[in-house]
């Protein structure tokens, strides 16, 4: 197991390199320069100052050299400084990262629990009212454009009913609250973004759980388990569940990039202080170092999630051994 883990970690490196290279390439091939925003809109900016600025940012050299320089700095965990406010990129990312991780972790766990519950119950009572209702719900969930749903929910709960805050992560008086109130405040802020994000993946995963569960329930060992007089609950949760879990884990690993990509939209909609919004702002203002940093970070998280999914396989199915 340990040697397998080591091997897998080694294969992460070329993937990570590829991703950063691609990000860098897109940024460099795009017309225009990040300094344009400062120089072109400023009439007092002389040509000389413009060249100075380009040189300061290291943008005057050919791009392969720039990429190499960036890699060299990365090996020392130095992501450079933001073009916008000159703060180290690593600080900017680290202060936003916990919020994004919290959001993604919460919605991921919500997806996982709900999807498994819905899918398993629907499979155990195939054709019953619950199954039909959830099937309908799943199709509705599949088809609804989620960011539009987010807007509708904001209007309903935030404006019409006034129950939930519609943006950010904390209220203005956050510092004055005690611990319990702080937790409650954050929970209120998280409720809408988490549930909307969860809906994106819930429908598909519940459907897959159902079909994978149905397949398992037809196996011989389930009949054996029933024949030896086990309770139905035990058959489903102990014998069938573990075997049905494997395709679900695969799907979960595949959903991760989508979920993280989704945070770019949802964090912007909900004005949530996370990495996705930082990334969106960096894209709009062409903050290359921040963009590279976020690209690397996002890719790293995704790869890590995939690795975790692979590890979970072994937990769910002892027959799978990694060498």
């Amino acid at each position, binding site marked *: 197991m340990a040697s397998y883990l080591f091997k897998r970690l080694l294969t992460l490196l*070329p*993937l990570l390199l*590829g*991703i950063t290279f*691609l*990000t860098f390439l*897109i*940024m460099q091939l*795009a*017309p*225009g320069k990040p300094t344009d925003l400062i120089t072109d809109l400023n009439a007092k900016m002389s040509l000389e100052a413009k060249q100075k600025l380009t040189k300061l940012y290291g943008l005057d050299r050919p791009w392969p050299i720039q990429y190499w320089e960036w890699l060299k700095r990365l090996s020392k965990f130095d992501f450079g400084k933001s073009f916008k406010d000159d703060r180290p990129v690593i600080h900017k990312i680290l202060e936003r990262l916990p919020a994004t991780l919290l959001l993604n972790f919460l919605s991921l766990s919500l997806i996982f629990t709900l999807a498994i519950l819905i899918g398993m119950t629907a499979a155990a009572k195939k054709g019953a009212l619950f199954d039909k209702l959830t*099937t*309908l719900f799943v*199709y*509705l969930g*599949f*088809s*609804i*454009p989620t*960011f*539009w749903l987010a*807007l*509708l929910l904001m209007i309903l709960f935030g404006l019409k009913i006034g129950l939930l805050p519609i943006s950010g992560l904390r209220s203005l008086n956050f510092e004055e609250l005690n611990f319990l109130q702080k937790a409650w405040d954050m929970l209120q802020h998280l409720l809408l973004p988490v549930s909307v994000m969860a809906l994106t993946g819930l429908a598909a995963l519940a459907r897959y759980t159902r079909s994978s569960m149905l397949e398992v329930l037809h196996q011989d060992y389930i009949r054996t388990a029933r024949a030896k007089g086990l309770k139905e609950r035990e058959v489903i949760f102990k014998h069938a569940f573990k075997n049905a879990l494997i395709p679900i884990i695969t799907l979960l690993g*595949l959903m991760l*990039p*989508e979920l*993280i*990509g*989704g945070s*770019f*939209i949802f964090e*912007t909609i909900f004005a949530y202080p996370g990495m996705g919004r930082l*990334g*969106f702002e960096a*894209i*709009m203002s*062409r903050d290359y170092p921040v*963009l590279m940093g*976020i*690209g690397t970070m*996002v*890719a790293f998280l*995704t*790869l890590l999630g*995939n690795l975790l999914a692979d590890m979970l396989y072994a937990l769910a199915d002892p027959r799978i051994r990694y060498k």
Partner: protein
Amino acid sequence: MLKLYIKRFIQNKFALWGISFIFILSSLALFSPFIVPYAPLEQNLLERLQSPSILHLLGTDDLGRDLFSRLIYGSRISLTVGFVAVSIATLFGTFIGLVSGYFGKWIDSTLMRIVDILLCFPTFFLILMVIAFLEPNILNVMIVIGFTSWTGLARLVRGETLSFKEREFILAAKSLGLSTPKILFFHLLPNVSAPILVSATLGVGNAILIESSLSFLGLGVQPPIPSWGNRKRLYSLCMVAFFISRALHFIYSSCV
């Protein structure tokens, strides 16, 4: 062969319903100038923000433009984006998948590593970046969506190709001395077409969704051109239309 196909198609009630639905939708988009009561860009400031009435079937927006006309016109743009983007993705993904699966060896491993990289890249980040750096217009949106969504299909086609290329009929084709492109496109391709078709049908809806989320962030098709993703009142309306048609699509496909 074709006759048999048409006969079987006509006998399937669901297929007929489906084709007539598609026919109605596309003729709405195609003949929209003759259907809509108002020009989609025509402003009438005296009649802004009206509720649905006989004059304005779905009401008007904040500039007094007729929402029904804009919805019908918007379907043109959205359908174009959906179909063109999916065509790019399907052609590209199928080709890469076929080549990768058939030739194997270093070609396969190089192509699949590239797919690996793209697969763990959050697609939306990539799309946002390219669109923001290039000019956000309909052509760029279609191209970018197309070239970022071929990876899954390439994987699928490669897997199918791997299993089919060992079959006897490919061996027979080879021993008859057929050229490689002929084997690839006339003998392998028809056999791997099922997953391609499924992924293409699902892809159209996804492409329209991506376009509308880009428009939502101000990076998609630019106003005043009506696309289904444009904001404000039209936006909600289109999302409802999209929601209904997509839900119909899924429920329908589960009945077939």
